[in-house]
């Protein structure tokens, strides 16, 4: 346990409490006014910032609402445009494909394709038979019975 008595004879303990500091003349006399001025200035500053916030609050609320509406509308419009652009690009791709096919075929290939043997195979009917068939004047019932007989 600390015993204060054992230090009582120390040189610095003899000078116990002697204050070596001083203050400028009139410091304490003017302190009250200075501190009150500072507090009032701080209160004014606080009041100003409170007023500023009070004015700014509704303005910010309106601005935020407008921004929100703009963003919602803009996002809807953008989505619609994107889907539209996508479908248009799909059509144009198809279109491009067909254009590309025709452009790749040269003239001789095209002529061969039109007058190829495939066509003659699928229509193995001579013109006389065709004329006789057309002039026979058969109605639908007769045609049907003929097909049935064949």
């Amino acid at each position, binding site marked *: 346990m600390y015993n204060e008595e054992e230090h009582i004879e120390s040189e610095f303990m003899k000078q116990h409490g002697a204050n070596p*500091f001083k203050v400028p003349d009139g410091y*304490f006399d003017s302190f009250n006014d*200075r*501190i009150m001025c500072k507090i009032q200035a701080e209160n004014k500053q606080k009041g100003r910032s409170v007023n500023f916030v009070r004015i700014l609050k509704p303005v910010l609320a309106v601005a935020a609402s407008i921004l929100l509406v703009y963003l919602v509308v803009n996002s809807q419009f953008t989505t619609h445009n994107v889907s539209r652009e996508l479908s248009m690009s799909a059509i144009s791709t198809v279109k491009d494909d067909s254009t590309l096919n025709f452009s790749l075929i040269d003239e001789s290939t095209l002529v061969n394709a039109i007058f190829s043997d495939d066509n003659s195979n699928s229509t193995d009917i001579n013109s006389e038979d065709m004329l006789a068939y057309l002039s026979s004047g058969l109605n639908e019932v007769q045609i049907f019975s003929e097909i049935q007989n064949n």
Partner: protein
Amino acid sequence: MIVRKTSIDSIMTNDQQILDALRVPSTREGAFRQLVSLYKERLYWHIRKIVLNHDDTDDVLQNTFIKIWNGIDSFRGDSSLFTWLYRIATNESITFLNQKKRKLTSSLTSETDFLVNNLESDPYFDGNHWQKLLQKAIAQLPEKQRIVFNMKYYDDIKYEDMSEILETSVGALKASYHHAVKKVEEFIKYHETRVEY
């Protein structure tokens, strides 16, 4: 000792009157002026012993009273007004020194060097050779011991009051003071024999 007790009793009565007046908006400013008048000197000397320089003390004291003004509604009366004011002043002083310490980290100067420089550059230090040595000895102490030593050595504040202000047990405060006195004695003994002192 009887005089001291009487003065504390009268302060307590005044404190209650001031607190009552501070709670009424119409008398608030007047009561605060009274509080400043009553405590400015004691708080000033308490802060001055911690930060040493007059200009720094003035800044810290102003911040202390602004904190008191802003926080007076939160004072619930769990402790005495005197204790509450001293606690704010002590915390403000420590905050000030910590801010300085952070700046000093980059310039490789210790807190002790800063305090000694602060003392030597202060035109309002009126101590003799020996008192300057004592202040240097106090500046070597760790922060808590320095505060406890100053409160006991210069202001003779009771350990019970100190315990409330610093939120530390009486036993720990007595031990801090004991260690501080030992260190100060050793520092003075060592440096008294040197040429520079």
